[in-house]
């Protein structure tokens, strides 16, 4: 049998927790201001949702029609945004495998403080049809705080729009504090995440 030279395919991976490469600070709670300005901001947040769509499964197919002329979410001030830095709404649209979860956590942590999560479909609620898979999580809210679940397999765009409405209501009521919740219960979330992600190759919080 011929020996294949593995050298050229080798990837040199730096130490993942190298503090030179990653910021090691942990998230802090940023409390709400109890005044009219906060209300104004809440209103603006609710009316300008920039969504980061994490298309993991069949959900990503269901989200396309949202932008079309038939459903047109832009009339609610909702617009897709390609980078988590600028988005404030995170949509997990389907089953989440362990490998995917890692990316979800990273993206979620890269979003800035008022940030909201919608879990789309049964898979994010209880694992759905993949409930007994060795590789698919069952409950998304054990790993990141979820504001709204939209049930169904798959839910139709109308259901998703209803979900957006629910989310807006939550935000305007001042209950969209997922980011602060995450910071408060950081240890619990992190323990859950680390329980299933065995090769944890990132710092504890991805700024």
């Amino acid at each position, binding site marked *: 049998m011929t020996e294949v030279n593995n050298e050229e395919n080798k990837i040199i991976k730096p130490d993942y927790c190298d503090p030179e490469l990653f910021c090691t600070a942990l998230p802090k709670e940023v409390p709400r201001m109890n005044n009219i300005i906060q209300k104004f901001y809440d209103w603006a947040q609710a009316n300008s949702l920039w969504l980061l769509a994490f298309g993991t499964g069949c959900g990503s197919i269901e989200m396309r029609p949202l932008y079309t002329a038939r459903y047109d979410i832009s009339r609610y001030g909702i617009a897709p945004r390609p980078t988590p830095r600028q988005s404030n709404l995170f949509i997990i649209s389907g089953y989440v495998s*362990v*490998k995917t979860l890692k990316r979800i956590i990273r993206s979620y942590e890269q979003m800035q403080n008022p940030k909201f999560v919608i879990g789309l479909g049964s898979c994010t609620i209880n694992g759905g049809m993949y409930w007994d898979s060795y590789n698919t999580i*069952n409950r998304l809210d054990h790993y990141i705080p979820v504001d709204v679940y939209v049930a169904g397999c798959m839910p139709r765009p109308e259901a998703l729009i209803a979900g957006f409405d629910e989310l807006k209501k939550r935000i305007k009521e001042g209950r969209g504090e997922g980011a602060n919740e995450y910071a408060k219960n950081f240890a619990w979330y992190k323990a859950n995440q680390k329980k299933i992600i*065995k090769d944890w190759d990132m710092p504890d919080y991805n700024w």
Partner: protein
Amino acid sequence: MKELIERLRSKFNAKNIKEQRKNFVFITVEKKDLEGCVLYLKEFEGYGHLTLLTALDWIEKDQFELVYHLHNYSNKTDVSVKTFIDRKNPTMVSINNLWAGARVYEREIKELFGIDFPGCPRVNDPFALEGWHEIPPMRKDFDTKKYSEETYFPRPGRYTKDNVAQMEEQLYPVEAEVKNGIAETVRKK
């Protein structure tokens, strides 16, 4: 096809020949003959396309079965070469030098069944699972339900119904009730 089978039989001692269709045949060869067999099929018989390479776990026989599915573009025929390897010591020669695409299959089989292919590039890198520490999940002795329940915080309240009973109840409620009543009566007795 017949001639091909004859040749394979004489050259590689192919056994267990099963002609699935008139252009599709399964053969089984010894582990040591496998590489020569696929090489022969590729170079001399025109089976230039490796459609599939997969594995089966015969836990009762304590064997893994590897299936090499080859396709011939010119006369549109397929040959599926099978071989059995020991489950205790699952090692197989790599055919990545014949088909570069075999690397992906071999990596996948390595990850999901734990069959090693020495010499295949990056065969040990994770493929779909990152940081998997259990026994390979596609092996029959791995209990995926148990693992899922232990690991993934199953949401309480989920229940399972027998599919047949569920459909009967929905479509034929009277019959189902009667049936259930009979069953209950029988049980009571």
